[in-house]
């Protein structure tokens, strides 16, 4: 099981990955810029994402909306920004590959001449509305901001959420956009994947013609920052919610680092699905929680493991905390059963194979090639990634849980209904979030 590919690096440093798949007459064009909110600094948060919006507002040779010509050719398209990278993709009928390459290369090479103060102001308003819709006006929507700020030290670039602070978005200037583009949006900081119904040689020639002349930019230094948490932190946020919710989190290894896959498997066996230990205990048997889930959130330079549980009506977050910590203690004591390990392995194998069903979009084959190339410098990392899950054992999972989820250094965040701070875990410090 793998994603076959070829890799070519153009003279300007652009990595070009090609994958042939003729099962559907479509082509995915997917481009990653290795820049995200971790390249920002305090006071300037939210910028990488705001910039992503501007990439859809036209470039020098097509100075109007990015969507129109592509939708007119039958494309589906989107982009996204996270802490570590910004990606853009089009899925076009096979006959429109050239158009997609033209459009992507024009905004890589010629964005700034088309940028205006009016576009900038408009997209800032749109982003402020995105923030209102997805964070401020959504129950528990500000939990992520509070948790990141609790886990990571001042100056650490994972301390803020990618959407950014409102005051920072208001303070952003058009000059910053130009500087940001020159620094990060150039071929040597990007990876382009073309996957689907293509003839690789012809497609590569088209890529070379469109992207070959874009000048390389300055090298981008890797972001380095250390995070450590040696004490327990308790935070509390009042929100427009009916049921209190508890978030517990620990700092954990970065993406693909030792222990990362084991913690991913541990998240499933602890809290994902009806057979998981915490679901059975808190939701199924004791009925003190309305829901529970867990995740290993691994990022490029650090990770965090998080368990989230919502209290059933009239049950306390302290009860949830006790149940969760006892189950973690039990996992440390005994590790997973053979049956749990085997199910985790089959589920991982299935998920990896299901991911091969589509060439484009978020998580499709083109996106995976770029992810592996950007983070591991190896587009062919798919099977090694899967092997991390295949090789995990009772002992290795138990070891990761023991190492990262015990001892001091945990953030407990209580989200409680407005006016009910008494429902938070005792001694929680109020967080000011907006």
């Amino acid at each position, binding site marked *: 099981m793998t994603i076959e590919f070829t890799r070519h690096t153009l003279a300007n440093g652009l990595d070009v990955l090609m994958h042939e798949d003729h099962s559907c007459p479509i082509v995915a064009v997917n481009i990653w810029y290795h820049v995200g909110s971790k390249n920002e600094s305090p006071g300037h948060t939210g910028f990488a994402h705001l910039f992503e919006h501007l990439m859809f507002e036209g470039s020098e040779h097509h100075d109007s909306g990015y969507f129109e010509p592509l*939708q*007119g050719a039958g494309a589906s398209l989107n982009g996204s920004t996270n802490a570590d990278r910004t990606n853009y993709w089009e*899925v076009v009928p096979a006959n429109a590959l050239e158009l997609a390459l033209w459009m992507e290369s024009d905004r890589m090479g010629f964005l700034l001449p088309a940028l205006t103060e009016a576009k900038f102001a408009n*997209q800032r308003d749109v982003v402020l*509305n995105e923030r209102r819709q997805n964070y401020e*006006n959504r129950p528990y929507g500000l939990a992520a901001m509070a948790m990141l700020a609790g886990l990571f030290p001042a100056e650490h670039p994972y301390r803020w959420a990618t959407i950014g602070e409102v005051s920072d978005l208001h303070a952003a200037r058009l000059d910053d956009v130009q500087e940001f583009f020159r620094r990060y949006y150039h071929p040597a900081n990007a990876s382009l994947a073309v996957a689907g119904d293509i003839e690789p040689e012809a497609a590569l020639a088209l890529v070379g013609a469109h992207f070959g002349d874009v000048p390389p930019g300055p090298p981008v230094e890797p972001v380095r920052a250390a995070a450590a948490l040696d004490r327990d932190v308790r935070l509390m946020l009042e929100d427009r919610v009916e049921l209190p919710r508890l978030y517990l989190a620990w700092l954990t290894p970065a993406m693909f680092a030792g222990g990362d896959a084991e913690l991913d498997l541990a998240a499933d066996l602890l809290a994902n699905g009806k057979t998981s230990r915490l679901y059975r205990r808190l939701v199924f048997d004791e009925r003190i929680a309305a829901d529970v889930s867990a995740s290993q959130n691994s990022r490029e330079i650090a990770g965090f493991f998080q368990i989230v549980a919502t209290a059933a009506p009239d049950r306390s977050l302290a009860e949830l905390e006790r149940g969760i910590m006892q189950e973690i203690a039990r996992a440390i004591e005994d590790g997973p059963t053979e049956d749990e390990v085997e199910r985790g392995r089959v589920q991982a*194998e299935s998920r990896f194979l299901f991911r091969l069903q589509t060439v484009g979009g978020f998580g499709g084959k083109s996106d995976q090639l770029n992810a592996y190339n950007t983070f591991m410098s190896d587009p062919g990392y798919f099977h090694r990634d899967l092997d991390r899950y295949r090789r995990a054992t009772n002992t290795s999972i138990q070891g990761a849980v023991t190492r990262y989820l015990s001892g001091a250094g945990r953030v407990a965040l209580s989200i409680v209904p407005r006016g009910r701070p008494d429902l938070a875990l005792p001694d929680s410090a109020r967080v000011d979030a907006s």
Partner: protein
Amino acid sequence: MTVDRSRLPSPGAVRPFTFPPIARSSLPSGLRVWTVRHPAIPVVTFMLLVTRGAANDPDEQPGLAALTADMLDEGSGGRSAIEMHEALGRIGAQFDTDVGPDGVMLTLTVLGRFTERGCALLADMMARPTLAEADFSRVRRLRLHRLAQLRDVPGAVAERTFAKLLYGTHPYGHTPIGDTQSVAQFSVDDVQAFHARELRPASTVLIAVGACDHETIHRLASEAFAGWDGEAGPPAEPGRPLPLPPRLNIVSRPGAPQSELRIGHVAASRDTPDYHALVAMNMVLGGQFVSRINQNLRGDKGVTYGAYTGFDFRRMPGPFALQASVQTGATARAIHESLSEFAAIREARPVTGAELSLGVAALTRGYARNFETAAQIARAVSQIALYDLPDDCFAQFVSRIERITTQEATRVAMRHLDPPRMTTLIVGDVDAIGRDLGRLGLGEAAVVPSDPDIFQG
């Protein structure tokens, strides 16, 4: 090779795409078995579709279809709920239950080597669920917790309230999840009765798409579904006449930074002869990123992250609705702009040739990408079963859409959009926006209880 940047490259010749054939057979019970071979990846997606849904909830029992569907994976035969999910986990299955107004759908995706076990588990869930009291009380309690949580989700409050406003006591007058009063009174007998009455093979299709052949699936189905029989009750009927809701309604959400909006009315059913023209017209109005509505509210004014319109085509006439979340201070303006766009596309600014070509191209040129994965194909096939569509509806879609003219688009806009009859619902901060609303000319805003469990239309 140098690139000409003075103009955009034009796409080359379209590569042909044909929808794969559907192989069909039936079991003596009436269960239909439909398969599509899609061998690209060794994966099989099963979709079990019953053409009875939330619209078949008994009058006083909104939410019963959804709760019954939610009980199906809670154990069957000798298997407990936990054992059922362990069995699903052992084959790495991806399992999902979906309940809409017109159907209940179970979807299960497995690696090819687990085809037989996947089919057997799906049959156990649908044909032989235990439906035990202990599991029922737990599942009902969780459903009540969920309903409590949804009171804080503006989009969910808007969906539930808008359905009630538009449809009243009609079978589409509630969202599938139902309401607290109703769900709190369900008993396990109600669930067993719904299962016995509505979840029957004669109104069900088993769809399998992937690396599988029809004979095998037919054989597996006839073994796995053996003993499940019976006719379902009659399809839902409209019953009482639709209500005449106030033109402007507001659910109070003090201090909300945005207003969640719905604007619309009951429109067309899936079998309307105007289906293709409405789909094309809606692309121009609000069905895509570059539509008039999104361009107006997001592109020009920046007052929302996105605004869309859609016709929800169902077995009976479904709603046409705009949905958007707009910044609080711009609420009245956004409503005014939206209603103006609906009026304009009928008369003052009818769909232009350029707009229509763009909408048609967006629908047709990339049509193939809707059929890339097994799950996508299964979903498409399920539409045939759900709405009694002809087999060639996918083969014909592109040419039917391409034949739509601007006159057609205008005709269906005039016929199916009726701005004076539209109902507007706001979930937002009454104190901050109340004064502006007076200028809309929609009359006094009716204040709807903020708890959708209380609102009875």
